């Protein structure tokens, strides 16, 4: 009873935090806009001066929605990967899945120059199908290799190491492609790699959010299977679950989530790895029926907070989001681990 109450409180706190941070993202930016003006724009009474309306509705709103969607997508994907591989170090960037998406993007960018297209140069890729397809294909390919290996080698550490090695190999291929790229392509790719939530318009951001939520619902429907997998494949099998199908289905969904989160914003580091740990720490549970909603609210508040932190106060420009998530994410994870270590000792 007591535990459930605490879980409920944490869930409430992080839900409210997500909402507050979402509004803060609309309010705070390089251009100072008062609360009243933000509210006026949101209720559609901004009047004559449409400058604020454009800034809030066309620039800050898609950014906030994208941050929200990416936070959900990467956190849920990270949780699924950690459970399926039964490894706390599994995550989109660790297993090379983000690198797979990056490879897809790099190939399209340099192939684009061959075909006379300038894909990344256009900051607003209106459902840029080749780019999305390439990122999804890249990340799913890496996942397929990992699944293939996982079916033959049961040792999770070995699988993890192989994942890391695939990540290095894919990064090396990306490096070679970059070496032969033109200067402007290189610049485009580097900027893409630094990450930014401000490259989507409202339609894309909402598309991203809807797909992320739909895929999360798919994951939620597998929460019993995830719980069973956490206790080992033998246990899962004995409880009547088709282990192979469940595993593969979950990994494909995770791969799609990572690819979607990556293609519009660039590879966002740390969120997928860190958020499941934070969620387990705060919610003190390993039941996926609770953990999935928990990573949703925590992941969303983390990316929204990072997007706020990226807008440096007093400066007219923003930091790359990838740097901010790592700068905030790494100390948080270390703090959590150290704190948990202390608790265990006493």
């Amino acid at each position: 009873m007591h535990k459930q109450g605490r879980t409920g409180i944490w869930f409430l706190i992080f839900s409210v935090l997500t909402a507050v941070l979402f509004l803060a993202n609309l309010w705070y930016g390089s251009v100072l806009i008062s609360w009243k003006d933000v509210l006026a724009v949101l209720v559609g009474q901004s009047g004559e001066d449409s400058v604020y309306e454009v800034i809030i509705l066309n620039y800050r709103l898609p950014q906030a929605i994208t941050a929200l969607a990416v936070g959900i997508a990467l956190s849920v994907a990270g949780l699924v990967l950690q459970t399926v591989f039964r490894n706390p170090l599994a995550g989109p960037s660790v297993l090379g899945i983000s690198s797979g998406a990056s490879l897809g993007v790099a190939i399209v960018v340099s192939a684009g120059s061959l075909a006379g297209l300038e894909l990344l140069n256009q900051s607003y890729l209106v459902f840029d199908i080749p780019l999305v397809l390439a990122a999804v294909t890249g990340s799913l390919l890496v996942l397929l290799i990992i699944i293939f290996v996982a079916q033959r080698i049961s040792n999770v550490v070995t699988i993890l190491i192989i994942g890391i090695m695939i990540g290095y190999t894919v990064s090396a291929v990306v490096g070679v492609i970059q070496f032969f790229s033109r200067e402007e392509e290189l610049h485009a790719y580097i900027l893409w790699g630094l990450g930014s939530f401000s490259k989507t318009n409202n339609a894309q951001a909402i598309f991203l959010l809807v797909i992320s939520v739909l895929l999360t619902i798919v994951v939620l429907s597998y929460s019993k299977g995830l719980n069973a997998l956490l206790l080992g494949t033998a246990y899962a099998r004995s409880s009547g679950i088709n282990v192979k199908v469940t595993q593969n289905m979950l990994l494909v969904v995770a791969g799609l989530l990572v690819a979607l989160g990556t293609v519009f914003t660039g590879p966002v580091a740390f969120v997928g790895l860190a958020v499941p740990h934070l969620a387990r720490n705060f919610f003190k549970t390993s039941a996926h029926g609770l953990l999935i909603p928990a990573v949703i609210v925590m992941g969303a508040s983390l990316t929204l907070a990072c997007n706020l932190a990226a807008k440096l106060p007093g400066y007219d420009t923003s930091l790359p989001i990838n740097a901010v998530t790592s700068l905030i994410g790494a100390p948080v994870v270390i703090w959590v681990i150290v704190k948990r270590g202390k608790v265990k000792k006493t």
Partner: protein
Amino acid sequence: MIYPLIKLYKMAPQRFAYLLLTVSILTIFSCNPKQNKPEIASLFDAIPDSLLVSKVLYASGFDLYEVHQIRKLVVYHPELPGTIIATFYIADSSVLTDFEVRNAPNIIKLNSERAAVFSATQLNAFDKLSLLGHVIGITEGEYINNRHIKEKLEKGEIIELGANNHFFIEKIMSVQPDYIFYSPYKFTAKHPLKVTGIPLIPFYDYHENTPLGRAEWVKFSAAFFDGYARADSLFKDIERQYTTYRSLTKDVASKPTVFSDKYFNGQWYVPGGKSYIATLFKDAGADYLWKDDQHTGSFPLDYEIVYSKAYEADFWRIVGSYDDIPSYDALAEENSLYENFKAFKTKHVLWCDAQKTAYFERSSLEPHLVLADLIFAFHPKVLPGYQPKYYHILE
């Protein structure tokens, strides 16, 4: 090889010391032969500063002096004005026989037949000065628009010595140009070309933030060859036309506001208030929105900062990159945020097609035409019937 080393090791310490001393003395003498010829630098040092007048009037990146048929070329650090990073002495080989030239890579023989030129703008200057016959190597041949250079590349009279930002070091060493005009992105003492041992001559025209200063670098290239007078008259002509055009906007009644460039991957790189294009805007009688800024190059800003300042600006200047399709529809498709600017709504986008006009290659030696294009856009009545070359208002 090992045997003498063992012998040395076994030698008594005193005798070893004598041996070292003898070797050192011999080395010192062999490197310091009797100096019976004067050094070129001392020739210039002897002349008082007041008598040494530079031929350079506008450019801040170099100075050029000439004494007794010897040219002294001083190159300054592109970011630290006045800090000398290199000095070259250029003279005909008949003049050089009177001077000490050994161990002096900064003494250059006039009229080399084997120069490597790694900057597209400088190659354009070579073409204008009819000096292409002196060039044996270039880089990034794929992006060169100049017909003459392309022909020479195909015939093999000019060789590509680098591409995609990488130098073909071994090829450069096998071709052995007399010197390399290079154009590093940033000044660094440890440039990858250093390893070739070939004299490197930095060419920093793009760091000049005034149009006449940038055009004056034509004198820099010409200083290495006989036809200097041609560069001098070419520049005088540019200067005359530029100042004539500039004087047209002195008395314009109103100055339209203008902003520049596009959003790119989350950042809007805005040209600084002391930049090349800011000078052109001013001279063309426009009011550049960031004119009070102190940057000489571009700097990144958030979209919302640019929008809040420029949403009512009269003109929007864009230099399209290689594969851009210039149209309002394409702009709107690239980024729906663009549609909110007044300059977009009133169809006042001032576009330069970088590929068709070879803007990056040629415009630095035609600043008067760039200026006239801008004046024609901002104040069409001042230049009735003018045909723009680089910039036109997007229809």
